[in-house]
């Protein structure tokens, strides 16, 4: 009874801390940093969702998918196309795009019913490569007509940017909107992970025969994971489309999927916080390297490589698991050092003790 009370209290405290952090991120951060930082933090939130999708698949179910950036770009494409073609409200647009990408993700997940490990990674990487090629050939929609919605007529290009929600047209307002949508996606992931699907995924990750013996419909739950992961990544793609306004200006490279996987592993694949760290590594670090320090951000690949090696060898739980442990160890070390440096307490001499204890 007391242990369950203790647990509930821990959950409440954790929830409060997250709520306070969210308020700081939404309300205080825009007042403290400039416009370029706000754009970067918006990208951090968006890429955190893509990393979250990777984390759900690999960290929870054990299925490695290297097609997350491809799904992000597909979400971006569909979001752009539908934004030009329809006038549906933005939240509905997010749901529709998420739903379509979810279906695509489930189709990609079908080979996962038969494949795992390296083979699944290769198949999904090939899918990412194919998406890059197709998007390169078809271009992003720019307000033209037809299925592709692309026109090469230069007088029409750039007339209308992909619309943002009416309540969040400015960069700061859109940043807040994206953070709140990302928080909702993280909450959905948390509900899944802590509930029946999460337990089923954990059992599949541990052993598929054991999961079957436990009554888990492995086909359903694997496809469910692909669907959820793709839905969140599709929503992220749609958010990205509205952030950029003119998505044809960006290019998605196949290797971005590998970088996302590496940063997700460095951040911590078994924790939802790991996805936030991955988003920071993916978007904030290149911004700091390039815009703040003037370095070529490609050097980050070396850093990520070294970080990945470190994680794989010494800290499979990633930074989110290792960092608190390291801080606790450092704290203990400092405390021991302080105790050693402080003068020992003076104790009364033995003879004095004996005198006081003995009856007179």
């Amino acid at each position, binding site marked *: 009874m007391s*242990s369950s009370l203790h647990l509930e209290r821990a959950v409440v405290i954790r929830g409060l801390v997250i709520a306070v952090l969210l308020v700081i991120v939404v309300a205080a951060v825009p007042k403290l940093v400039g416009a370029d930082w706000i754009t970067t933090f918006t990208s951090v939130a968006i890429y955190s969702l893509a990393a979250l999708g990777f984390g759900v698949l690999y960290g929870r179910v054990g299925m490695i998918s290297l097609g997350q950036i491809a799904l992000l770009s597909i979400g971006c494409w569909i979001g752009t196309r539908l934004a030009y073609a329809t006038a549906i409200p933005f939240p509905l647009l997010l749901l529709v795009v998420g739903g379509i990408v979810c279906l695509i993700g489930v189709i990609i997940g079908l080979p996962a019913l038969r494949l795992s490990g390296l083979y699944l990674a290769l198949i999904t990487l090939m899918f990412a490569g194919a998406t890059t090629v197709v998007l390169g050939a078809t271009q992003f929609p720019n307000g033209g007509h037809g299925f592709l919605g692309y026109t090469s007529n230069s007088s029409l290009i750039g007339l209308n940017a992909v619309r943002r929600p009416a309540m969040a047209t400015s960069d700061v307002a859109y940043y807040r909107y994206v953070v709140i949508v990302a928080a909702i996606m993280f909450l959905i992931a948390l509900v899944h992970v802590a509930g029946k699907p999460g*337990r089923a995924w954990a059992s599949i990750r541990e052993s598929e025969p*054991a999961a*079957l*013996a436990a009554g888990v419909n492995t086909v359903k739950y694997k496809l469910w994971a692909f669907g959820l992961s793709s839905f969140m990544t599709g929503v992220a793609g749609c958010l990205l489309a509205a952030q950029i306004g003119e998505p044809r200006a960006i290019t998605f490279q196949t290797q971005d999927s590998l970088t996302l996987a590496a940063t997700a592993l460095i951040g911590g694949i078994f924790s939802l916080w790991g996805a936030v760290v991955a988003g920071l590594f993916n978007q904030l670090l290149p911004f700091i390297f390039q815009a703040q320090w003037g370095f070529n951000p490609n050097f980050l690949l070396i850093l990520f490589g070294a970080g990945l090696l470190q994680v794989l060898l010494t800290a499979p739980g990633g930074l989110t698991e290792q960092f608190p442990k390291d801080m606790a160890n450092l704290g203990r070390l400092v405390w021991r050092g302080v105790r050693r440096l402080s003068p020992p307490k003076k104790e009364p001499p033995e003879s004095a003790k004996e005198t006081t204890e003995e009856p007179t």
Partner: protein
Amino acid sequence: MIEVQGLTVRFAGVTPIDDMSVVFPDGTCGLIGPNGAGKTTFFNVLSGFVKPAAGTITAFGQNLLKVSDYKRARWGLRRTFQTEMAIEKLSVYDNVALIHEHSGAKRATRKDDVLKAIEFVGLETAPHAKVGGLGARERRLVEVARAVVGKPRIVLLDEPAAGLPDEETAHLAQVIQKIPGEVGALVILVDHDMSLVSACCETTAVVDFGKLVASGPTAEVLRDEHVMRAYLGTETPIDDSESGSGVGAAP
């Protein structure tokens, strides 16, 4: 009761179960035999992981082979594995609750049923403790708790005492002995520890080279010269008609 008739399993050129017929009555039944005799393959057939080339398995009047693999837990089949498979990332409670929620048991009784199963196996660990931090004994008990939760009809225990010291095996024996009476399930126990089999099983079947060597009351079977020869490696399988009563060769 489980009735196995003419069960044959083939993997390419290997026949790990060869026209085996055996009956497991209610209670706790032992299934023993040397390494490679076909015991785990038989469990895998019961679990639906392996499709037999021939034969039937009738459990409580139902053709078990027609039930798809993951639906067998809902039907009432539970099992443990030679290599313990408790889920490290989940808590003790969630490990047991997983089986409860996927076996069709009522949600309203989940908490009570799960805690009862944990108590039944004598696990003193806090239910919210992560399994990854537990020792071998506790993890084995978590597996057994998973096997007895949610009104099972058949519990298959594949070497549950492997790697455990004697005093922990004795505790496990007490738990296994209670299953038919308190949980109401038929138990089939595979183990190389003959003291555990003797302590838990009223009847025992012996297999070797995928065939039934002997079956009947455990004490008689363990004294059977065919069985001793099989363990010493000189026995050839006998005709089903020669085996005894209790766990018996099916007609």
